[in-house]
């Protein structure tokens, strides 16, 4: 299997702002790779460096064997790009627009095929001006596909889509991957990464905080069970469970072995005839894992 994208020690600063702080990524060809992270995490910065729009401050980057910072038209003929925010001429129709952009590439796909693929068949002769926001984004995807690229970059391809349109977009990405195209996408949505990607990297504050197939992503956190309870203030001699309780006496403990932990707690409580108020045992959802992964680091960075 060949490597489509290889990134080592990538850094990017804007003046004093360190947007990307030394990340490593490897994307194999044919893979759907998702870069997941909150607002301002450094996703767009990273993708635009890979696309050749921005210059990196340091690090090594290779995309389809080229350095995007210096690569030319041959490189751009092999990639398709959906930027986070770009327009097209409002006075051209959907068909004309796809035709216009497809014509820049040596192996353009048939215009109608691309228009159908993104579900704009009924709007093919409508001017871009009259498309809804979501339809314009689908047109963005169509433009990126027009040149039949090997590697497709999608920066938040479904932000602003209605649920139906999101499913459609996912379907398109799955189609691409069944054609052995490589897809690099960014997203805010855990479920999107889960549904589409073979591999996910979570970025927060310019650093990769977790990486792997979505099923095992944040495995340690996902495996952990959270046990929550409150001990009335009157109770003295509370053992140190590795945590200072909240002001109302609430503990929130994390464990990989909930059976043993619950046994220890309840044993202690029964012996003293204390009740563990509001006792709750829960396992985090993927969304929780993601929030935690991205939050933890945010907190660390903030306290620097």
């Amino acid at each position, binding site marked *: 299997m060949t490597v489509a994208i290889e990134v080592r020690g990538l850094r990017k600063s804007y003046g004093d702002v360190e947007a990307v702080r030394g990340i490593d990524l490897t994307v194999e060809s044919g893979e759907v790779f998702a870069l997941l992270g909150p607002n301002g995490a450094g996703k767009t910065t990273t993708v635009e460096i890979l*696309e*050749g*729009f921005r210059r990196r401050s340091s690090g090594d980057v290779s995309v389809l064997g080229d350095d995007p910072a210096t690569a030319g*038209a*041959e490189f*751009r*003929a092999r*990639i398709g*790009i959906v*930027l986070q*925010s*770009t*327009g*097209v*001429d*409002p*006075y*051209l129709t959907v068909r*004309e627009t796809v035709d*216009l*952009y497809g*014509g*820049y*590439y*040596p192996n353009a796909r048939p215009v109608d095929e691309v228009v159908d693929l993104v579900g704009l068949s009924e709007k093919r002769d409508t*001017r871009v001006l009259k498309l809804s926001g979501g339809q314009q984004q689908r047109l963005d995807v169509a*433009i990126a596909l027009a*040149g039949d690229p090997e590697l497709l970059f999608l920066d938040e391809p479904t932000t602003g889509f209605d649920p139906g349109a999101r499913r459609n977009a996912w379907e398109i990405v799955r189609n691409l991957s069944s054609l052995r195209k490589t897809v690099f996408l960014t997203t805010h949505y855990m479920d999107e990464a889960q549904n589409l990607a073979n591999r996910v990297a979570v970025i927060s504050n310019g650093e990769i905080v977790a990486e792997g197939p979505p099923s095992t992503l944040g495995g340690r956190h996902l495996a952990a069970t959270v046990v929550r309870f409150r001990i009335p203030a009157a109770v003295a001699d509370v053992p140190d469970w590795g945590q200072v309780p909240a002001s109302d006496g609430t503990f929130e403990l994390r464990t990989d072995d909930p059976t043993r932990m619950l046994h220890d707690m309840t044993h202690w409580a029964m012996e003293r005839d204390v009740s563990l108020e509001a006792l709750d045992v829960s396992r985090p959802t993927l969304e929780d894992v993601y929030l935690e992964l991205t939050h933890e680091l945010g907190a660390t960075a903030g306290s620097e």
Partner: protein
Amino acid sequence: MSGPGQVVRQVLFTNKAFWRNPASAFFTFAFPLMFLVIFTTLFGEDEIPVVGGVTVSVSTFYVAAISAFSVISACYTNIAISVSFQRDAGILKRIRGTPLPSWAFLLGRVVHSTIIAVILVAICALFGAAFYDAELPTRTLPAFLVTLLVGAASFSALGLAITAVIPNADASPAIVNASILPILFLSDIFIPFDNPPAWVDFVGKVFPVRHFSDAMQAAYFSPTGSGFSGVDLLVMAVWGLLGLVLAARYFSWEPRK
């Protein structure tokens, strides 16, 4: 597709979009012709000497002057404003991400503007021949065409260059008009000159607009000779080159923050 083929394609698509946009079609196309009619109606009776040594009626003068203005409007104003809008809309950035060479995109715009300018000038000339006693410059046609093309190329380059100081699309009409309107008034275009004050003469000598108007008048009205005004064309070309150098250095493909 080959580079020239790509340029032709750009021209065709730019043209399609141009005519569908009511604002660009009106301001670029209808405006100069409207000026021609208004100015000749208001000031057309008098006789004035023009470059080339003959005396013509003011309405005849305006045929040449508004021809020059048409080129400036189609090339400088139109390119500067529409490119700023395309830049803000992210169209320029998107183009940069495709294999289309940047020069093919820009040249496509310049060629399209030049075609619009040629059509406008042709309309002015035919209109002038029909109504304002401005005989078609058939004898001096080579000079007329060369002047037209040097003007179109130079003002296109300046139009691309000025985008570098336009912060965003909303500001572009104001900046573009502020940069060109005063010069148009001081350059024997909107107001025919007969012994202008020295400082106005100076402004005319420095900037390319008066040179363009003079060259156009010479190419239009010269009773003898080829109608070429070498010095004027040279000054325009120098401005054009300056614009090209500045554009090459400072042109931005991404919205300016």
